[in-house]
């Protein structure tokens, strides 16, 4: 089992053993030309070398703008897409090479909650059939006579009336549907749940309910979450650690306070400066970083640092040398919250979000 240089971010703070270990994950979609004679003319580099570790009972938030490869990572984790390269180790076992029975066993333990509760539930199946389907696919989990009871228990766990078992998805609201999706994810008692933007299709008022439900379930069932979102405040609310993705790579990762209060990567700083600030006074004083230009095409990724085309700090070195995801040299000996992995040659601390306390309170009461 090889370990790479870009290994775990917070070794000291997470004593639990890693449950999921991702190294050098790559997904390239080939671009072909021609109908009869297919010729590869390039590749969309959706995910281009992602490493992270997920510990038991922990939530890892992954943020980034649309198209940065977050969802592709999620799909590879639950084996909906085969990675082009790299390893996904679940409890030390590489799951990318598995098939058949062994793959099914792993799938039981890594489940997914989908983004859109309106399309992720089969409209022609009753709620009981939807939540009970995992038991039909993995009959060893629950004997036949037990299933109905188990499904009703699950409905109860996610806060729905167990009597609703015979209803169809269209008879529910968006938030209730997402609860059904979560119940389906929980049915097999998985250890890891990959949530791909689980609340971005919901009303803001309902988002908080669903997030809090997920947080409660985490402690009840000892779950580990990979929580993917583009809403920074929601990721902060639920995550223990956060990884910031840009153009198929993680550019900065650390504990939530490290990322939100002491960001060292310019992209993270730009991202955080765009978060709406509820306090008008604080809003007056903050500095907004407006990035110029667009995200480069994933078919044609810039040399060196992939953020350099939009970075105000970019210098010649950035075009030549790919910055490694590691604690930057200037913070290596200082310690403190700024000493976390950041893939930038010119990393420096810059506080762009007002201090933690009032924000956290606000988020909680709003929930």
């Amino acid at each position, binding site marked *: 089992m090889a370990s790479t240089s870009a290994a775990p971010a917070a070794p000291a703070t997470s004593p639990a053993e890693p449950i999921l270990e991702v190294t050098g994950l790559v997904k390239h979609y080939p671009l072909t030309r021609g109908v009869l004679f297919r010729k590869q003319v390039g590749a969309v580099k959706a995910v281009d070398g992602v490493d992270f570790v997920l510990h038991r009972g922990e939530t890892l938030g992954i943020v980034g703008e649309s198209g940065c490869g977050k969802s592709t990572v999620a799909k590879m984790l*639950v*084996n*909906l897409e085969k990675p082009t390269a790299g390893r996904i180790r679940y409890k030390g076992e590489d799951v990318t090479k598995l098939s058949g029975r062994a*793959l*099914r066993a792993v*799938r*039981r333990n890594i*489940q*997914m909650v*989908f*983004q*859109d509760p309106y*399309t*992720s*539930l*089969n*409209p*022609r*199946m*009753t709620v*009981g*059939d939807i939540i009970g*389907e*995992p038991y*039909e*696919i*993995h009959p060893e989990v629950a004997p036949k006579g037990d299933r*109905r009871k188990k499904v*009703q228990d699950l*409905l*109860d766990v996610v*806060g*729905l*009336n*167990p*009597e*609703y*078992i*015979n*209803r*169809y998805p*269209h*008879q*529910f*609201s968006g938030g*209730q549907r997402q609860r059904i*999706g979560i119940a*389906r994810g929980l049915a*097999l008692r998985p250890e890891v749940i990959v949530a791909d933007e689980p609340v971005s299709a919901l009303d803001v008022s309902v988002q908080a309910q669903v997030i809090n439900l997920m947080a409660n379930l985490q402690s009840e069932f000892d779950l580990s979450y990979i929580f993917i979102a583009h809403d920074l405040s929601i990721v902060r609310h639920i995550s223990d650690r956060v990884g910031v993705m840009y153009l198929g790579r993680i550019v900065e990762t650390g504990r939530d306070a490290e990322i939100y209060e002491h960001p060292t990567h310019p992209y993270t700083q730009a991202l955080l400066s765009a978060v709406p600030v509820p306090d008008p006074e604080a809003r007056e004083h903050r500095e907004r970083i407006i990035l110029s230009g667009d995200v480069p095409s994933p078919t044609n990724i810039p040399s060196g640092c992939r953020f350099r085309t939009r970075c105000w700090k970019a210098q010649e070195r950035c075009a030549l040398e790919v910055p490694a995801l590691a604690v930057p040299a200037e913070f290596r000996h200082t310690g403190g919250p700024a000493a976390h992995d950041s893939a930038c040659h010119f990393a420096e601390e810059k506080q762009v979000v007002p201090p933690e306390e009032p924000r956290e309170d606000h988020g909680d009461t709003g929930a």
Partner: protein
Amino acid sequence: MPEPMPPEPLLSGGGRVPEDGAIAATGMGGAMDLATAEGETLERAPAGPDGTGPTDRPRSLWSDAWRDLRRNPVFILSGLVILFLVFVSLWPSVIASGSPLKCDLAKAQEGSQQGAPFGYDGQGCNVYTRTVYGARTSVTVGVLATLGVALFGSVLGGLAGFFGGVWDSVLSRITDIFFAIPVVLGGLVLLSVVTSNTVWPVIGFMVLLGWPQISRIARGSVITAKQNDYVQAARALGASNSRMLLRHIAPNAVAPVIVVATIALGTYIALEATLSYLGVGLKPPTVSWGIDISAASPYIRNAPHALLWPSGALALTVLAFIMLGDAVRDALDPKLR
């Protein structure tokens, strides 16, 4: 009409909540425990707005569809017409005495009279008897051709849509080729060499030329259905290809096939008439509305009844099947409930 559902146990829980009450009940908290839920069902059930009793089995799509259909007057009406047609096809002699082949030229083109309510046609044959006996061939050709087309087309198209790749490309080009064959010309060429007196060559010809239409529709709707998140969700759970196809894709892709197939059923009955008119479809002494319509068309001014009765029967049959298809489609789509 036969009642396929087993008697519903009255004293059981896990209640079915009346649909009309669904929205209101959603507001009640989820804290109700199972024991009370069972008791409640008993009290609430008789008050259900639709009067149906509670059932304890989980409701499936098809049982719900059936429940819907039973209450749909369009379905009942078209179903009765079709049942009557099927009955007449099986036992025509129950309502029509005499042979449809017994003709008396002396009575040619005579109007309605005792023993021949629809009058006589140009050959002096009893129009009533022939119309009754003609139902058998029209219904047989229409139903069998539709079944063959629907099965063959949806299986081929569905598999091509699901698996994609090379087979999809090959199949799509083959359907293009079949679409390029003109139906009437193809019928003239292919059926003119057949000497059989049965309905099978005609049915076979319709399946041969009809499957690409259904295949395209099935392929398209399978491709749409398989991109849905719930199919991805099933795959993430570890579902097999057959489970994804049968449980998730097929039920969500079958509605367009049913609709197109029922509409096609009418056109197949009409196509049988066309081919018979041209002399390559069914041949006398087979009794068919198509043959009778073409035989009566020269006398339309003198004896319109000989044309109108079989035409009317044809139109009624086509209408009944189309209404049935419509009712089935509505019942299969829970979103319309």
